[in-house]
């Protein structure tokens, strides 16, 4: 399943999500539900928001995994894993838990997709027929 398809599924499943963009940690857009220009601006803002939010970590080295911002006029959600970030916007007063669940599921699905598939186990070689010893034949 392609990343764009995963995002399309996400907006179909979660009616609360209006727009979503997947980006890497450098801010490069991987996929989005909007046109390229808007996606670029969304990704840039999402990355800036994430970096600014990381400054509020209570302990050094503690990883920020998700955030939500409730604004007048809508909400913003950002979920990150090791190398990917998904940012989404919703209408006002969304069901926060549900939106986070859908975003994390989408991100997890993309992670599984990009992970290398485990190599199939080699089939056991058929055993060679046992040679009869010379004294057995005699």
């Amino acid at each position, binding site marked *: 399943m392609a990343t764009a398809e995963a995002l399309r599924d996400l907006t179909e499943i979660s009616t609360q999500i209006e727009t979503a963009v997947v980006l890497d940690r450098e801010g490069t857009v991987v996929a989005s539900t*909007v046109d390229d220009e808007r996606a670029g601006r969304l990704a840039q803002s999402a990355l800036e*928001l994430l970096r*600014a*939010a990381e400054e509020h970590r*209570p302990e050094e080295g503690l990883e920020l995994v998700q*955030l939500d*911002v*409730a604004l007048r006029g809508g909400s*913003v959600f950002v979920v990150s894993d090791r190398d990917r970030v998904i940012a989404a916007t919703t209408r006002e007063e969304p069901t926060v838990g549900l939106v986070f669940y859908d975003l994390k599921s989408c991100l997890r699905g993309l992670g599984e997709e990009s992970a290398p598939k485990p190599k199939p186990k080699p089939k056991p070689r058929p055993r060679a027929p046992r040679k009869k010893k010379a004294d057995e034949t005699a």
Partner: protein
Amino acid sequence: MRRRSFLTGFLLAVGSAIAAVLFRRRAARSKERVELYFADGTIVSLAEGAPGAERLLQHARELLGAAR
């Protein structure tokens, strides 16, 4: 008569309490806020006006603006 005035007073008090709760809830909801969730389960909540909140809210407003 006395019983009736007690009932009126009681209903007025209950009504006022409910209205106050609803008003506070509505006021809290209309306030902008940021919630940050960390890997160890820590949640940092920054309401509008808190130190550092404005910068995050500004980035979020830009993001919302770019989406629309």
